[in-house]
């Protein structure tokens, strides 16, 4: 049994944690949250230099070739500090989509730019209310141009490339890669619950685009991309949830009420024990997801969906009970609790909400039962 990260990857984790403690403090997060910039460009470029962005990309495409387990480790550390960079959108979604669906030529021309942090990509699947579904591919692709409206799009204000869900002239669902630097793109930054990761509405009017994967496969490809992203996002989530539990525990040890630390009261102890339980369940499910992602296992869909359901539940619980444990200070702008509360919701929604993924768990169970 070897169900844990290797020593090498644990070393990578330690390095990442030390680096982020200096370079991704809550001050850095707040400068994005408060609208000074759409993301922390200096941090982003340093991440590229250290090979983090291309961690899971093959070396022939400019990556570091560490594999997806390495990317999971980094995702967890970025989640711990609610890093204000387009990691989820550009690396977990767009680059992953190119690795899944792109031709060799597309990988060769695009991935090095992602690994170097020169491209920022995103995945534009949402068309307003609702979870991922086959019916929501209503953007139109014809003659190398795409038109349609997509919102919310994570980092849609900064991205220069977007993987867009669309249909072709014969109504077949497909993925296309749209060049957002070209004319015909109108971007509106949306007001959201977590401005530390900005979202936009994209109106595309005959924007140049190329097909990614086979036309007709769009829905299946989207699901594969989202499954893979679900594992990576689960690591961001468990990182954030772990940090929330640490913050709440530290506060409960130091804050006194009625003559003793509030952490000595069972109401607080049992609450935080429940957070610990949810976090450990989520961590274990995420590890299984990492294994399935790294090995491209047949169980990936079930593993990814379970990791996502667990991690979403754990982060929500940990972030709200962190505020609750902090009492009045917890809901001030000055305390960091809200950075996590916001991010837990963003990550819990960005690739489809819990009900969508719960349904996916059961669908996968039914499939494996029938087999």
């Amino acid at each position, binding site marked *: *049994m*070897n*169900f*844990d*990260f290797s020593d090498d990857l644990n070393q990578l984790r330690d390095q990442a944690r030390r680096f982020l403690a200096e370079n991704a403090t809550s001050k850095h997060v707040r400068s994005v949250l408060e609208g000074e910039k759409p993301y922390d460009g200096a941090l982003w470029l340093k991440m590229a230099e250290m090979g983090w962005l291309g961690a899971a990309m093959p070396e022939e495409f400019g990556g570091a070739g560490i594999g997806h*387990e390495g990317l999971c480790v980094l995702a967890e550390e970025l989640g711990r500090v609610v890093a204000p960079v387009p990691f989820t959108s550009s690396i977990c979604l767009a680059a992953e989509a190119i690795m899944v669906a792109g031709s060799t030529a597309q990988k060769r021309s695009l991935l090095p730019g992602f690994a170097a942090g020169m491209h920022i990509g995103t995945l534009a699947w949402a068309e307003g209310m609702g979870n991922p579904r086959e019916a929501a591919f209503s953007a139109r692709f014809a003659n190398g141009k795409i038109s349609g409206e997509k919102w919310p799009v994570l980092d849609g204000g900064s991205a220069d490339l977007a993987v867009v869900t669309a249909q072709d002239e014969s109504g077949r669902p497909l993925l296309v890669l749209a060049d957002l630097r070209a004319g015909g793109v109108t971007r509106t930054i949306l007001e959201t619950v977590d401005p530390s990761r900005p979202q936009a509405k994209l109106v595309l009017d005959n924007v140049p685009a190329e097909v990614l994967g086979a036309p007709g496969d769009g829905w299946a490809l989207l699901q594969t991309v989202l499954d893979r992203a679900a594992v990576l996002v689960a690591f961001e989530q468990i990182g954030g949830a772990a940090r929330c*539990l640490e913050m709440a*525990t530290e506060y*409960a*040890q130091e804050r006194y009420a009625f003559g*003793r*630390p509030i*952490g*000595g009261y*069972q109401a*607080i*102890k*049992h609450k*935080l*024990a*429940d957070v*610990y*339980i949810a976090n*450990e*369940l*989520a*961590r*274990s*499910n995420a*590890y*299984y997801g*990492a*294994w399935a992602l*790294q090995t491209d296992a047949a169980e990936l869909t079930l593993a990814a*969906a*379970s990791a996502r*359901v*667990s991690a979403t*539940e754990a982060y929500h619980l940990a972030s709200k009970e962190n505020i609750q444990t902090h009492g009045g200070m917890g809901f001030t702008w000055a305390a960091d609790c809200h950075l996590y509360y916001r991010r837990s919701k963003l990550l819990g929604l960005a690739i489809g909400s819990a*009900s969508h*993924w*719960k*349904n996916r*768990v*059961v669908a996968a*169970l*039914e499939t494996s*039962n029938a087999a």
Partner: protein
Amino acid sequence: MDFDDTKEEAAFRAEARAFLAANAQLKSEAKPVSRGRHIRAEEIARAKEWQGKKYAAGFAGITWPKRWGGRELSPIFNVIYQQEEEAYAVPRGVFEIGLGMCIPTMMAYATPEQLERYVGPALRGEEIWCQLFSEPAGGSDVAALRTRAERDGQDWVINGQKIWTSGAHYCDFGIIVTRSDPNVPKHAGLTFFFLDMHSKGVECRPIKQISGTSHFNEVFFTDVRVPDAQRLGAVGAGWKVSITTLMNERLAVGEVPRPDVSDLLTLAETLDLDGAPAIANPSVREKIAEWHCRTQGLKFTRFRTMTALSRGQTPGPENSIAKVVNASKLQDIASYGLDLMGAAGMVMDPELAPLHALFQEGLLFSPGLRIAGGTDEILRNIIAERVLNLPADIRVDKEKPFNQVAHGKR
């Protein structure tokens, strides 16, 4: 990451598999056994026979010293054996307390002559041991126990009552913690012994549980004489010895109690809910997904613990969540299964109720699981204090002589 055995582990697993295949019946081929009625004499005989076979094949004391017939292997090999054994319908539970808690305590405190006398028969399954800690006045607060031990010449005389003793009525020996001095604070006045359960003055009465079954006993002690030579540890050091016993609780092997989420899936696939298959109902699907994630989360948490053991490291505290998650999950799944059946969920007739009334049995059995072996509340305290390092509860009885501590009507 992978789920592979090391070379030694794989060889051991193959040996365990071969032994089980040759000597036991697969659960899937065995007649389903209802969750224990009162354990009968022939079942004890069957359990003793099985333990003897395990001993002969070297699977009884996998981590124990070779001089006692063990293999001196690391705990991961124990887990591997348990994993393999789980698929088989073999007698369980009769020897776990004796070999998991009582004999390890003896090994720490008994004389060489005593060990020579007791260890072999226990491991071979010839003698069964029980543990006498809990009392009516000492459940979660076990050190509040009141059973008296008074010195009389070369003997001690024990009077009082123990409760929740598994299998006391078929056990040969027991370990017991008693109050030898009520004039000092509660932890300081305890003394520990082992005794012959057939001694004069020991009386066992089964406790009938909600489920109608009886796993536990009350044990009454009336002027029971125990030689001082059977004292384990110093007079007044009983609490320290008790901790040794409790530290030896085995790594939970992770048997998932049934009905589990796969039983619920089976049920939802067969039942109709408002004119459509229950499995098509979104709220049913959400529930199944949530329990699936919890079940898998525990399974992979156990794998993390096994990984540490396999690497020769001390496991982290993560496996401490297992029982508290499992017990509530069982209760909730059982209750939800009955809900899906509608009014018929009340019916427990195994001819009529789905899966031979597994869900109804689970409903009545599960409240006990949330209490036995550490209540949900105590387990959360343990996580909070030992894992999260939150302050211990205030104990108003800590410094007071035991006979001056307030006690309630129950």
